[in-house]
């Protein structure tokens, strides 16, 4: 994203500084939104008058703003607001841990294959390509459809299908870094390969990794939502943003809020992470090859 395009006589509000500020403002908005959402998910359930699991069949399908059901109730008469926040805990945790795990896998594979060129590197990168060459949703669904869908399992499955991007970025980064002077120097000093890979090279590749990791959280939340929507993800009574949408299609005409509210929440959370990732990219000056 080159900034050289700006002609010299641009007005002040088009200046590079303003642009960066604007970008960062988005990142700040994202950060604020996600912080608020996370706080709400942590504290909210204690403040609401209803438990997310409490079933009251007399109060089913109450529309939003019925009594203290601010966001209405679901087919079992449970408070949607309470479930939404409870679901947020699970969805955000799944997203976060899936990111951690996939970043670790991706970094490990990326570093190793970037450092050892030749057979090891080539084989590893072929595996990366293989994973990239089927739509991850295929792999994700196949795994989720056939395994016990607990939150931990879903986290692992999502991580297993989304580490490739990180691996690629890290591999490219490491490949260019390994010829640098400081790496050559370390090698001459007789440091072990592991030491050079993880203590010398990796810290220098942190920028792109952090950006990719942030975007992976966004992606993981979307993936969880999709798998749970299809009924292969987090299982009730545990709520997740995705499985709150599962079944919502059935009540679309009678209780549209069941579909609309979780969807908007997912969008807000994912947008926030995307904004943050975008801001980080600018701040860390990472080339934007990968969106």
């Amino acid at each position, binding site marked *: 994203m080159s900034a050289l395009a700006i002609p010299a006589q641009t007005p002040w509000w088009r200046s590079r500084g303003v642009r960066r500020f604007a970008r960062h403002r*988005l990142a700040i908005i994202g950060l604020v939104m996600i912080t608020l959402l996370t706080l709400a998910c942590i504290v909210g359930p204690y403040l609401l008058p209803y438990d997310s699991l409490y079933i009251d069949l007399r109060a089913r399908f109450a529309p939003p703003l019925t009594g203290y059901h601010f966001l209405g109730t679901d087919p079992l008469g449970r408070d949607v607001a309470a479930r939404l926040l409870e679901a947020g805990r699970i969805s955000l945790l799944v997203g976060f841990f899936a990111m951690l795990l996939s970043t670790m896998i991706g970094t490990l594979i990326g570093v190793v294959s970037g450092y050892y060129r030749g057979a090891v590197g080539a084989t590893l990168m072929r595996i990366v390509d293989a994973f*990239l060459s089927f739509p991850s949703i295929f792999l994700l669904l196949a795994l989720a459809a*056939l395994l016990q869908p607990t939150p931990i399992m879903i986290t692992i499955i999502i991580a297993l299908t989304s580490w490739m991007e990180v691996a690629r970025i890290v591999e490219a980064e490491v490949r260019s870094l390994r010829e640098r002077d400081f790496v050559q120097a370390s090698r001459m000093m007789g440091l072990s390969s592991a030491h050079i890979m993880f203590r010398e090279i990796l810290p220098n590749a942190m920028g792109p990794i952090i950006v990719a990791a942030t975007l992976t959280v966004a992606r993981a939340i979307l993936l969880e939502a999709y798998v749970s929507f299809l009924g292969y993800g987090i299982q009730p009574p545990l709520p997740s943003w995705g499985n709150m949408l599962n079944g919502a299609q059935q009540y*679309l*005409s009678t209780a549209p809020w069941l579909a609309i509210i979780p969807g908007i929440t997912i*969008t807000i959370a994912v947008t926030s992470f995307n904004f943050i990732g975008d801001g980080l990219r600018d701040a860390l000056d990472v080339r934007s090859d990968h969106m």
Partner: protein
Amino acid sequence: MAGYLLNRLWQSVVLLVIVSIIGFAVLNLTPGGPLSQFALTPGMTQEAMDRIAEQMGLNRPLPVQYLDWGWRLLQGDWGTSYRDGQPVLDVIGRHITATLLLMGTSTAFSIAIGTWIGIHGATRPYSIFDYTVTIGAMVALSIPTFWFGLVGIYIFTLELGWLPAGNMYTIGDGSVLDYLHHLIMPSLVLSLVNVAVWSRYMRTATLDVINQEFVKTARAKGLTERRVLMKHVVGNAMVPMITLAGMQLPSILGGALVTETVFTWPGMGRLFLDSLGYSDYPVVMGLLMVSAILVLLGSLIADLLVALVDPRIRVS
């Protein structure tokens, strides 16, 4: 060139083998199986289930099953579906058209719109339009596709009654208009994400080109801004777009599958879900392989096209 092609081909074959091993392992190592749907049949006994499993070769050791499958594949036999006993390729072939129709319509639409937005934004960088579109694109990328589809159904089918809730055509109609009527909502939903992707890439690519010397030269020669844009900028900015089209294929395919499930579109995504539910392993494996081949082919064609379009790039 021939050497390059051979090399690419060889790499693709290795990739496909890895894909098939991963797929086969995932499918077969997990519990359950294609017979589970008969478990509740009145009068069905374990004896009969064991016999059917034996006849289908389901109780052979996994490596044997894999090698058997692979060996047949090499001879062009993709196996037969557990569900309707049809050759896997036929089964997929009958669903692939629907998916390609959806993908094609949506891709054409999103390239057109995305390109326009991208160029428009790049020539007016940091204008209100540019900001709105940049933010809009990021939000669009964050909306779950299936949910957007649901909202679409809610508004346009349930509330307004303008568009059908699903399917590809009305039985007994099937005219072009009828197809189009059914195509509108799914293809627009699928386009949402793609427009966002295209416009962002196009914007970046256009910005890169705009600043290059030859554009400045063209401007200096006194060509109108519009001519410069159309002749020099857009043409050159399109080159990386071709590569992108190849790279985007898996995600467009994935998106199509998601969209198909919401709109009961009878394509490969629908087939994949049905086959998974049934544990129709031959078809699931076939779909994995076909989509992998599509993706590899897509990126290969994209690379070749780039080489053709842009003489500066030499494939080596």
